[in-house]
């Protein structure tokens, strides 16, 4: 049996934005008033005349008058009603937009109104497609044909029912008079344009994840409702700080957000052209300008981008301080890796980076070293956290700044590409849609990643190791149990610890 929506369904089925539906319904009822509602006129087809057609300009004018708003606002509002499916266009039925001229629209019957309670079933869509198949004698539109084939495959156990029901519904529809039949077909077609939009359009009923609470139900008041003036000064200042940070974040990232600004060359989800993704692959030779700009926003951005990390690694290699980054990466690997190999990893890291006379010894202060070595006796995932934080801050305060002024970075910036924006015509967009192919399998991507990592581990820079060993001969032995070295790195560390980062 299929899973049905019973009363005991505690699943998440509501989306707060859809609270507009009930309000739109009330408005629709107001529009029907013969005296104060929208004026309707008959639609003249070849033989028949169908009443209750309304023009776009009439609806907009009525709404502007009703809510005392300007025409543009009313137009936006009506376009929302059309997109949701309360009013459907009679000419150009595929595009659910409102045209502020004499083009005709009609109200949708309440059965086909958008609701949240009654999810749009694939069974119904299959029946509709079968009916359309009968009517069009086998010639469906391309996307309809694709849907039909897909549903035939996935709903095969119900297909007999779909065919039977489609035939019966087709015959039942024929029982009505010609004008009503035409209206019914238009209604059903409009309903499915809203809920199964043709390619290149978006359904207004598309929303993200469902929520648990019903926006149309009564609100639970009390516990969480307190106004701003009841906050303590500390809470208030924290609120201000948070909002300031939020504003700063938004203004920094605004031009990088593909929703808010144009994605170069083009957004693959909109144009079906995957150039953007291939230009921004994790290990691409030449990064894009936007990507390189993001590396300058914060150190975390630089490290989280694999290409940025590669660039940084190159810079550190030239400075002979690549062990910091290697240590940091090793700690990340330990933290997020498998539990089975944890012990070996921890030992390997100790031998390579922390032990006295280690080949890639990192410079951390004595207290941290003590804590780390003690922890390594019983290693767990987070045993290297203090050391990792220290090294991270070190790189951030010291190397990051120098990296941004270095020739490596400047070279990368100069070579970075800025792709031209694509301008596709409708026909080209359809072509692109047909040529859609799945991207590389995640398994393959992971294998590539692992190969790269193995290559890097094998290629530990021999010159760096040699220079480290030679340096060790001149310096004092690492401060394992000796008192901490006074150096500027340590001062940097203490300062950073108490500053809120």
């Amino acid at each position, binding site marked *: 049996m299929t899973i049905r929506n019973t009363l005991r369904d505690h699943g998440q089925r509501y989306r707060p934005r859809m609270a507009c539906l009930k309000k739109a319904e009330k408005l629709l009822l107001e529009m029907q008033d013969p005296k104060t509602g929208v004026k309707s006129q008959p639609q003249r087809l070849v033989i028949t005349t169908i*009443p*209750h057609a309304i023009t776009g300009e009439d609806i907009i004018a009525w709404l502007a008058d009703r809510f005392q708003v300007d025409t543009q606002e009313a137009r936006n509002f009506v376009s929302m009603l059309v997109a949701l499916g309360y009013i459907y266009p009679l000419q150009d039925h595929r595009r659910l937009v409102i045209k502020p001229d004499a083009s005709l629209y009609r109200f949708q019957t309440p059965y086909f109104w958008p609701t949240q309670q*009654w999810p749009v079933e694939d069974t119904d869509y299959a029946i509709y497609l079968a009916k359309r198949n009968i009517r069009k*004698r*086998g010639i469906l539109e391309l996307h309809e044909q694709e849907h039909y084939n897909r549903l035939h495959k996935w709903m095969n156990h119900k297909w007999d*029912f779909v065919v039977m029901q489609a035939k*019966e519904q087709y015959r*039942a529809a024929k*029982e009505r008079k010609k004008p009503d039949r035409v209206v019914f077909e238009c209604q059903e077609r409009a309903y499915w344009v809203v809920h199964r939009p043709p390619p290149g359009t978006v359904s207004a009923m598309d929303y993200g994840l469902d929520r648990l609470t019903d926006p149309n139900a009564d609100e639970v008041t009390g516990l969480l409702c307190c106004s701003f003036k009841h906050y303590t000064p500390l809470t208030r200042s924290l609120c201000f700080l948070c909002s300031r940070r939020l504003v700063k974040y938004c203004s920094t990232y605004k031009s990088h957000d593909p929703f808010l600004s144009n994605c170069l060359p083009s957004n693959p989800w909109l144009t079906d052209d995957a150039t953007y993704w291939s230009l921004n692959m994790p290990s691409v030779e030449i990064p894009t300008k936007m990507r390189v700009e993001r590396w300058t926003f914060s150190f975390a951005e630089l490290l989280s981008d694999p290409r940025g990390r590669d660039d940084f690694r190159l810079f550190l290699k030239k400075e002979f301080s690549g062990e910091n980054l290697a240590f940091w990466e090793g700690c990340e690997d330990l933290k997020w890796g498998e539990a089975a190999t944890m012990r070996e990893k921890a030992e390997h890291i100790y031998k390579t980076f922390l032990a006295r006379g280690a080949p890639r010894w990192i410079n951390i202060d004595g207290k941290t070293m003590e804590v780390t070595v003690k922890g390594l006796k019983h290693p767990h995932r987070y045993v290297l956290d203090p050391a990792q934080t220290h090294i991270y801050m070190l790189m951030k305060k010291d190397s990051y700044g120098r990296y941004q002024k270095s020739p490596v970075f400047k070279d990368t910036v100069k070579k970075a590409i800025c792709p031209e924006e694509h301008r596709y015509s409708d026909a080209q967009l359809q072509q692109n849609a047909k040529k859609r192919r799945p991207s590389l399998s995640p398994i393959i991507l992971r294998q590539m990643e692992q190969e790269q990592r193995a290559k890097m581990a094998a290629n530990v820079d021999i010159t760096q190791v040699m220079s480290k060993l030679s340096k060790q001969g001149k310096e004092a032995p690492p401060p394992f149990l000796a008192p901490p070295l006074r150096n500027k790195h340590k001062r940097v560390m203490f300062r950073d610890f108490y500053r809120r980062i």
Partner: protein
Amino acid sequence: MGKDECKTMLDALNKVTACYRHLVIALGSTSDSQNLREELKRTRKKAQELAVANRTKLTSLLKDKSISKDDRAEYERLWVLFSSSMELLEVDMKRSLEIGQDFPLKVPTRHLIQTGMTGSTTTVAARAMSVQNMKYEADSNIDTADLRDLQCEISQVSQMMEEMEMKVQVAPWAVEAKQEAGAELKSNMSVGNSSVGVISICEEEPKEEDGGGNRDAGFASICAVLVFFVIVTVAVVLGYLVINMS
């Protein structure tokens, strides 16, 4: 045989479900009226009777352990048909309750949605009830009184479906459909005819009949009419000659 009886009853249920959906779509629009509410009520009752009959028959057939594997597969297919019909019916009943409550008829300012549909749905209901003409005899407060009945019936139907799920162990995804893609194009009625006319009590042609049969029947009737006219013309000419000769 049990199978044919089942199929006939399922066809009937299918037809009533389709007609009921058509009637519910007209609710709340300008073709809504007292009569529509009564039609809905009677169609619903008929659907429920058919549903109960179907369920009894199918449950008894499926519970029988001594049937062959092919038979069992066939009964499971019929079961999936039945349960899908019932799901559709249940959803339509719930929606008709909701829309019926939102659009009461007996209020001073009636706001029905001007959808452009102004005709009546009598013919659809007549098709559902398998009668030639519908007689309307309901009270004027049908829209409120009926809603209470409707709520009871909805709960009855939900209960029945739950019982069905519990008692009969059929895996719906294991059923293979007999119709392939595009099967609805084969048994197509000739386009342009409206089938207003006598609707027989006994069921439509069974699923297996081909569209080819329909087309041939059309040609045959045209040929027969032509031949008839030719014969009549010949007879008239001969008669005229005979009269002239005598």
